[in-house]
C-alpha cells in the first residue's frame, strides 16, 4: 500500500480516499439534517461557533478527499468536474446544500404543518403557521372583487365562453385556415367585447347592471390583460412600420409617440388617465374608468411592442426586401406577405416578454381605484376582523401570478423552438 497523503488524494489508494471522503461528507450533511429537521444538535458538546462550522469543515475535507482527477470511475469524475472542481466550488456546493436543508422545515411548517384551513373566523387560526382560512373565506372577493355574489355566474360563463372560443384555432379545415388571422384580430375581440359588455356589465336583457368600479379581483386582472393585449399589438405594429417609414412626417410622429410612452412610468400614465383625461374631453362625455385605464395601458404597451417588432424588421436580411420588390410587390403587399410573417416569428420571445410585463403591470390600476387581486388583498388586510394576515395574502397572490407568468414564458419558449425548427 503506497503512502496515503491526505493533502493530495490520488488514484492509487482510491478506495481509502473515496470511503473516507464520502463518509465525512455524509456526516456533515447528516448533522445539518438532524439539526434542522429534528432540532437535535449532535455536536453540542463543542463550543457554539465550532459546532456551527463543523459540518462545513467536515464537508470541505470530505470533498477534498474525493477530488481525484481521472479516478476511472465515470460517475465520480462527472461529479468532481461538476460540483467539486476546487475548494471554492466545494464550499459553495456545501453552502447551497445546507441552505436547502435548513430552509425546508420552516417553509414546510409555515405552509402546511402548522397552518390552518378549517373554520371561518380569525379564532380558527391557532397554529403558528399560515392561516389559510383567511384565504378560503376571502377567496370569492379575491377572484371576483366586489361583484355581487349572486351574479358571479355571469363572469364564469363569459370566461368559459372566451376560453372555448380561443381554441377555435385548432379545428378548422384547410379552407377556413386563412380566415384564422381575421378571426383572431377582428372577430374574437368583438365577441369578447360584446360578452363583457352585456354579460358582465349587464344593463340589458334582464341582467342587472354592475358598475365597473365593483369589478375586481382576478377576473379584473384577466379582463384588463386581455383587452390591453388585443389592442396594443396592432397599434404597436403600425407604430413599428411607421418608425421605419421613408416619409419623414410619419417617421417623426411615430418616433415621438414611441419615445414618449417609453420614457414615462406607467403609474404616471394611469394618474394622467384618471386626472387629466376628463379635462381633455368635452364636458358631458363620460368615459368609464375601466375603459380609460385599458386605453392608457394599451397605448403604453403598444410603444414597447413597437420597439420589439422593429427589432424583428431590422433583423430580416435585406435580401428579402429586395426579392419582394424585384417581384413587383408594393409596400403593403411586401410587408403583409413576406416581411411581417417572418419578422413576427423572430420576435416571439420579445412579444411574450411584453405580454408578461403587461400582466405584471395590471396591479398598478389601484391608483385609479380599480381593485384587481393585489388591490383586493390590500383591502382585505385592513379589515378589522382579519388583521395581521398580510403575509398569507401576498404569498397567495404571488403563487397565482408566478404560475401564470411561468406557464406563459414556458409556452412562448416552446413556441419559439417550434418556429425555429420549422424553417
Amino acid at each position, binding site marked *: 500500500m503506497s503512502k496515503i497523503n491526505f493533502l493530495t488524494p490520488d488514484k492509487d489508494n482510491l478506495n481509502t480516499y473515496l470511503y473516507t471522503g464520502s463518509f465525512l461528507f455524509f456526516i456533515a450533511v447528516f448533522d445539518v439534517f438532524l439539526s434542522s429537521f429534528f432540532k437535535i444538535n449532535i455536536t453540542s458538546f463543542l463550543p457554539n461557533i465550532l459546532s456551527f462550522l463543523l459540518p462545513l469543515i467536515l464537508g470541505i475535507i470530505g470533498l477534498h478527499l474525493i477530488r481525484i482527477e481521472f479516478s476511472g470511475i465515470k460517475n465520480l469524475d462527472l461529479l468532481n468536474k461538476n460540483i467539486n472542481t476546487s475548494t471554492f466550488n466545494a464550499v459553495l456546493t456545501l453552502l447551497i446544500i445546507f441552505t436547502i436543508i435548513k430552509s425546508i422545515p420552516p417553509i414546510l411548517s409555515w405552509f402546511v404543518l402548522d397552518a390552518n384551513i378549517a373554520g371561518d373566523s380569525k379564532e380558527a387560526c391557532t397554529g403558528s403557521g399560515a392561516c389559510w382560512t383567511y384565504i378560503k373565506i376571502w377567496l370569492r372577493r379575491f377572484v371576483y372583487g366586489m361583484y355581487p355574489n349572486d351574479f358571479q355566474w355571469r363572469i364564469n360563463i363569459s370566461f368559459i365562453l372566451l376560453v372555448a372560443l380561443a381554441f377555435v384555432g385548432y379545428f378548422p379545415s384547410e379552407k377556413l385556415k386563412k380566415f384564422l388571422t381575421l378571426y383572431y384580430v377582428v372577430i374574437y375581440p368583438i365577441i369578447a367585447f360584446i360578452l363583457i359588455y352585456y354579460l358582465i356589465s349587464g344593463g340589458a336583457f334582464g341582467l342587472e347592471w354592475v358598475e365597473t368600479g365593483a369589478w375586481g379581483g382576478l377576473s379584473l386582472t384577466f379582463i384588463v390583460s386581455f383587452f390591453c393585449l388585443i389592442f396594443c399589438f396592432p397599434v404597436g405594429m403600425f407604430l413599428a412600420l411607421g418608425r421605419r417609414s421613408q416619409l419623414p412626417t410619419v417617421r417623426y410622429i411615430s418616433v415621438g409617440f414611441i419615445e414618449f410612452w417609453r420614457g414615462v412610468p406607467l403609474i404616471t400614465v394611469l394618474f394622467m388617465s384618471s386626472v387629466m383625461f376628463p379635462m381633455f374631453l368635452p364636458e358631458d362625455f363620460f368615459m368609464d374608468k375601466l375603459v380609460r385605464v385599458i386605453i392608457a395601458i394599451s397605448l403604453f404597451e403598444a410603444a414597447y411592442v413597437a420597439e420589439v417588432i422593429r427589432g424583428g424588421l431590422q433583423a430580416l*436580411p435585406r435580401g428579402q426586401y*429586395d426579392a419582394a420588390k*424585384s*417581384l*413587383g410587390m408594393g409596400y403593403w403587399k411586401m410587408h403583409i406577405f413576406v416581411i411581417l410573417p*417572418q419578422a413576427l416569428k423572430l420576435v416571439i420571445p420579445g412579444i411574450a416578454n411584453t405580454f408578461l410585463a403587461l400582466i405584471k403591470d395590471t396591479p398598478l390600476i389601484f391608483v385609479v381605484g380599480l381593485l384587481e387581486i393585489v388591490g383586493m388583498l390590500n383591502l382585505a388586510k385592513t379589515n378589522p376582523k382579519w388583521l395581521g394576515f398580510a403575509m398569507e395574502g401576498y404569498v397567495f397572490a404571488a403563487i397565482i401570478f408566478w404560475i401564470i407568468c411561468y406557464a406563459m414564458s414556458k409556452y412562448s419558449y416552446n413556441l419559439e423552438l417550434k418556429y425555429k425548427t420549422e*424553417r
Partner: protein
Amino acid sequence: MSDKIIEMKSVNKWFGDFQVLKDVNLDVNQKQKIVVCGPSGSGKSTLIRCINRLEEHQKGTIIVDGNELTEDTKNIEKIRAEVGMVFQQFNLFPHLSILDNCTLAPIWVKKMPKKQAEEMAMNELKKVQIADQAKKFPGQLSGGQQQRSAIARALCMEPKIMLFDEPTSALDPEMIKEVLDAMVNLAKGGMTMIVVTHEMGFAKEVADEVIFMDEGMIVERAPTKEFFANPKSDRTKLFLSQIL
C-alpha cells in the same frame, strides 16, 4: 421601333462621397445575352440593380422597355414586374413552400387566379428540373436547388428581361453546373439576359457580348469571341489572366 429594351446614357451614381458608377453608357437589344464581369467593387451589381431600381442613379437616364426610370416614376412595381432578378443569396421566402414562393407575386401582383398561377409555376419549376420539390421549403433544399427555384420564381412573372447578380457565387462547386444549365436553357429560349458572373465558360457558351467593368466604368465591350481572343485594354487583359 427600336429594338433596344434597355438604354442607359451617362449614368452616374454615388454612395455618399464614393462614386460607384461613372458615366456608364449601355444599350441592350431584345433577346441579347450580355455578361458583365470585373473585379469586386467595380460596380457591376450596382449597375444591374439600377435597372430594376433597387438602387437609384443620381445622374443620367435609364430607359427600360420604353419607360424612363426617374424619381417621378409611377408604378415602379409594374416595371419591376417586367424585369426579373436572381440574387447571389437566392433570397427565397423561407416561410413559404417553393410553389408558394413562385405563385405569390402572380397571384397578388398580377391578380392571377390561383389554379392558373400554380399551373404556370409547376411549368417553370419543370423547366429548371425541380418540380418534385415544389411542396418543400427553401430550408430543406440544397443551394443549387434553391437558386433554380429562385430562377423559376422570377420567371413566373413572365418578365421581358432577366437580371442575374452573381447567381453562382454562393454555391458549392458541384452545384454550379445545374444552375448554369438552367440559365443556358433560358438563354436558348430567347430571353433577354444580363448576367453578372465570373463563370467565363458560361459567357463563352451563351453570351452575345461581354462587358468588362472596372472602378465604375465600362472599360471594354465586345462580342464574346473577340473579347476573349483579343482583349483591347490592359486592364481587361490583366483581369482575364487572373481568372482564366
